[in-house]
């Protein structure tokens, strides 16, 4: 059950999008997300959706994976749609008690749905096409200017790398402990809220104990390889912004400018 978490998973493929510079990807994804929030009418959304779909196809990651990330959000999407459906003023199409559906409400609900779906697609695009290492390298590089205000960009990036690296390990470990404890007669599925929370104690305690052990071991392993923070440290992966990245940036900027102008 815990294995089904897909959000933030890297999906290795050979594609133009995978090869892009992570910094450029982060910057452009942020720009696209703002574009999604700025867009207002159906035409703008159509253009945006077309563009996002084109990028999704270019990235060569199966669409079913994006849909899978949408699934847990289905309730949220439907809920926002319903709220929007009933909350707009305008030409009334149907009315019942205090609820009324207007033409504007339908449009608004539709656009809201597209907006949320686009946001999910754009953020999944970034995580599916960028390995965690590249992602943190990119973030570290982007955060470097913050050194002026004494922001420890290297340490933050290292912490993120470690956290990302150990998520699958922790999931595996939790899975194993859940199995071991259910073999000892714990029932995780039934009973009231308090009983279920209580059932988690025998899982969480061993999980924390082993996480602390692992953290200790990792610290020793890093120190014995002479890790001493970011001071004077060079990176094996040298990030380079290539012509393709500038091309992508130009297309994005053109698109967003176009959207704002309309």
């Amino acid at each position, binding site marked *: 059950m815990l*294995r089904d978490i897909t959000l933030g998973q890297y999906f290795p493929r050979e594609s133009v999008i995978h090869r892009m510079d992570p910094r450029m990807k982060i910057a452009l994804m942020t720009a696209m997300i703002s574009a999604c929030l700025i867009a207002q009418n159906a035409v703008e959304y159509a253009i945006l959706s077309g563009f996002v779909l084109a990028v999704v196809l270019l990235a060569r990651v*199966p669409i079913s994976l994006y849909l899978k990330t949408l699934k847990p959000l289905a309730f949220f999407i439907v809920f926002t749609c319903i709220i929007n459906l009933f909350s707009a003023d305008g030409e009334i199409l149907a009315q019942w008690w205090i609820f009324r559906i207007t033409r504007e409400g339908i449009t608004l609900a539709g656009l809201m749905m597209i907006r949320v779906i686009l946001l999910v697609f754009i953020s999944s695009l970034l995580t599916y096409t960028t390995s965690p290492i590249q992602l943190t390298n990119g973030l570290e590089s982007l955060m470097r200017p913050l050194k002026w205000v004494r922001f420890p960009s290297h340490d933050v990036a290292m912490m993120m790398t470690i956290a990302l690296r150990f998520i699958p390990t922790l999931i595996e*470990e939790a899975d*194993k*402990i859940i*199995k*071991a*404890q*259910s*073999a*000892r*007669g*714990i029932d995780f599925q039934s009973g009231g809220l308090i009983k279920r929370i209580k059932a988690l*104690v*025998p899982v969480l*305690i*061993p999980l924390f*104990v*082993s996480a602390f052990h692992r953290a200790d071991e990792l610290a020793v392993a890093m120190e014995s390889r002479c890790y001493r923070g970011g001071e004077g440290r060079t990176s094996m992966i040298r990030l380079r912004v290539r012509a393709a990245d500038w091309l992508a940036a130009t297309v994005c900027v053109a698109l967003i400018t176009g959207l704002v102008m309309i």
Partner: protein
Amino acid sequence: MIELKNVTYTYSKDTPFEKEAVAGVDLVVEKGEILGIIGHTGSGKSTLVQLMNGLLTPTKGEVRVEGNKVERVLPQIGMVFQYPENQIFEETVYKEIAFGPANMGMGGEELERRVAKTAEIMDIPAEIMKKSPHFLSGGQKRRIAIAGILAMEPGTIIFDEPTAGLDPRAKNHLIDTILTLNREHGVTVILVSHSMEEIARTCNRILVMRDGKVAHIGTVTEVFSHEDELLEMGLDIPEIAQLMRRLGYHDCWTVEQATEKLKEAAC
């Protein structure tokens, strides 16, 4: 008796990460035997044993215990996972051992008796019963974790690599305890191990897993006589058996058997 009929298990079915870990296994585990399971890492041993006590439900085929189809986790089949000390969570050794039977609804004097009896079988000294299990030695922690499962008095216990990471004395101690459980308490034992010596010393029958399928099943002699094939699978026969083969003895798998043979020869 545990029966597996054409059992198949596929991880992450219908996703790009689909993997068939156990493929069409037929197997009968007899009451009172010690069945050893060997196989290369990733050959499906761990998945197979989890199917036996209902922790996993087969994607195809069925598992029957005493004739009943397994549909949920069975308390009568105990499961000792690899490094079982990682599941310890209680404040005292006593509570840790009592956890399983308490979940089964046991309480009062009966529970106390059960815990005391289990502690005795597992050689857990009475003076540590009120101590925290988290600060004991690795070997002791493991014995406490196993006691926690034993206290549920399962008729069958599955041990997944029970001696991994223990020092030689703790190893021998644990193997002796497993043998006692089987001989004196009539517990059926399923033992997954990478140590051929351990398998030869304890098991009545051996099951060899390869790519999710049963490659061989039979007595110690039957299975270990396929030496070349075992070597090719990344397995081996016990070192003492290798020595005895060089000396010309072909049916000798444990140190005890070898001692006998060599004593005879010396006379």
